[in-house]
């Protein structure tokens, strides 16, 4: 069944986010997530929430981004002889490896639209590695997939991090013989 324009946009952007940091399908009808990873990726991390936030500067361009990505994907599919389901947004219809290949093309040095695509994928990535749409402490408490997978520890009760142990506490190398009295190179 054909998607509404809003569904098409969301699926397309989710598919892009999932290409950057992949995750598991959310159900049998999930087309956007390619399912090449077993743990939550950028989509589960909230990439769409971040992209839709006007603080990013990309929220007003998401319709254009989705449309353009599907146009590129249609061209890519035709070029590579990949049959795509016409009821599915072209980028969503691509297998993961082809989505990744197209992302590499769009973000490669010399591509005329490179800066635009780098901006979009940067936020997709940030949703996972720093949860830039959420307070970090809240995100960790809620089990945010990226921060949890990276092993970022919980802060103290006041929301600040302190590490009572930080050092091996012993000399581990000889300083350079020319070090000056100020501790600088000569």
């Amino acid at each position, binding site marked *: 069944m054909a998607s509404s324009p809003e569904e098409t946009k969301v699926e397309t952007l989710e598919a892009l986010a999932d*290409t*950057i*940091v*992949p995750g598991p399908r959310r159900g049998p009808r999930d087309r956007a997530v390619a399912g090449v990873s077993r*743990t939550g*990726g950028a989509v589960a991390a909230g990439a769409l929430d971040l992209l839709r936030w*006007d*603080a*990013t*500067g*990309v929220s007003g361009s998401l319709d254009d981004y989705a449309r353009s990505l599907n146009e590129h994907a249609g061209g890519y599919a035709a070029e590579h002889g990949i049959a795509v389901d016409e009821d599915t947004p072209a980028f969503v219809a691509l297998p993961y490896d082809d989505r990744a290949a197209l*992302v590499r093309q769009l*973000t*490669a*040095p010399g591509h005329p639209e490179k*800066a635009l695509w*780098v*901006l979009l*994928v*940067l936020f997709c*990535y*940030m949703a996972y*590695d*720093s*949860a*830039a*749409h*959420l*307070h*970090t*402490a809240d995100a960790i408490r809620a089990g945010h997939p*990226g921060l949890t*997978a*990276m*092993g*970022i*520890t919980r802060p103290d009760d006041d*929301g*600040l*991090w*302190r*590490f009572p*142990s*930080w*050092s*091996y*506490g012993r000399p*581990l*190398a*000889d*300083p*350079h*013989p020319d*070090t*000056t009295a*100020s*501790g*600088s*190179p*000569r």
Partner: protein
Amino acid sequence: MNDVERTDVLVIGSGFGGAIPAYHLAAGGARVVVLERGPWLDTAEYEHDFKLGSSYTRIFDFTVGDGMSVLGGNCVGGGSVVYFAAMPRAPRFVFERRGSVKRRMWPAAISRDTLEPWYDRVAESISITQQGWEDVSYAGGLWAAACRHSGRSANPVPAAVDTSACVNCNWMMAGCRFDAKQSLLVNYLPAAIAHGAEVRPLHEVQSITRTPDGGYRVHYKIVHGEDYRLTEGEGRIEAKVVVLAAGAAATPVILQRSERELGAMPYAVGRYFSGNGERLNTAVLNEDRVREVLGLERGDGLAYAANQIGKGPTVANWDRLDGSLPEYTRYSLEQLYFPPGLGTILALADGPEPTWFGPAKKEMLERWQSWLIIFQMIEDDNEGVFGPPPERGNADRVSQQMLGVGRLSYKPTATTQAAWAMADAECKEILERDGLATVTPWTNDLVGAYTVHPLASCRIGDDPYTSALDDRHELRGHPGIFVTDGSAVPGALTVNPAMTISALAERAVPAIVAAARERGVEVEYGAPAPDGSTAGRRAAAPLAAALLRG
């Protein structure tokens, strides 16, 4: 009736290059106004939070260029608030560099020896700790042990950090919540304010014009406190002397925009930009091998897994800082922390085709606590050139804070690329030895190369064709405009530059005082350090006298 505000000295920017002259000029009796583009945060406002809109994005700017992106401070205190506070002096050979111009880049008047008294003045003013091994973070200790294992030396790095107050949270880039970092907010700036200097945040200078009496009129816009894409008015101030210290990614842009009114700028304005030769490598450590090969244990069952813990860079390898080696083969390799969100997208997952995204990168992120980031500072070729300025500021702002697109173009020469390749190979040699780690460089393909230490876009020198400033930091052809920030540094330093930028700013003050006096300002040179100490002043006095005479 002319209601334009007037002051004696107008300082643009409140980082090292702005705060230091502002203090000395105010202490000497001049009326000083400092215009700062970014906000003014109190200690309690520094947050441990990656959410957009937290202090992390309010006080940092990430300006994307063509081939080079620049991270810099955007707040009262400038880079000193967001930096990692490493304060080494530059090695002696740096001042003899010839670089792309094939003759000595630095003015004849400046060498390590002649700069030493000015370094000392900074060291007396900003509390710098010579870190001991007990201060060195796990990451620094690991880097030291790996260097020793491969037959190399390694140095704890001098840092402007009060280690007794530091909790090793590694949130330095969001501002120090614990007042451990000795930023300009605890020395030069409060002293400048105590002497009457006015610091005005969210005032973004756009251009400079001339007044009929030979002074300058500085035009600014007031930036919205939350959404920096917006402005809330504009104004102007007239001054007899202007000190331009907006940072090496912004100072030349202000001058370029002013050219139509001020007249032709020196050729070197907006050219010869250097990224300080910076590049990052990520090592993903094999925890078992860290224990077996290096004998490291944290005491809690872990060998390392401590990427999150520390205070930025604590240990550097300086074996290649050897003046007998050819130019472009000298560099330092410094352990660094780099937070999520601001660039780890550029870290490459190892494999037949290293990649910054996808399943392999995700697996790499799952080992994030076992990352060790190594920061290279090589000698680059001053390749950067600024294109025509944007409508406002130094970038077209994309996000409400932090992210913008600037006009810097940087195409690394074969020489620079060869130096990076050499440093990459050495990182690999040190850290892949005996299976300790897998090492990959960050990609330059996405946002170009990446610097946190922009330099040289409006540099000092003796040659008017390759330097915008004379050796007293005065802009050629525009008397009374001085440039004192990182843009004045002639080229890459092979170490963190804050100490050298500060020493040059200290050295520039006597000539600025002399220029102000020539224009009728009653100002004296000779303030002590901000805390009243006088040893540095005494030692620099003979040099200062010569600079006052011009």
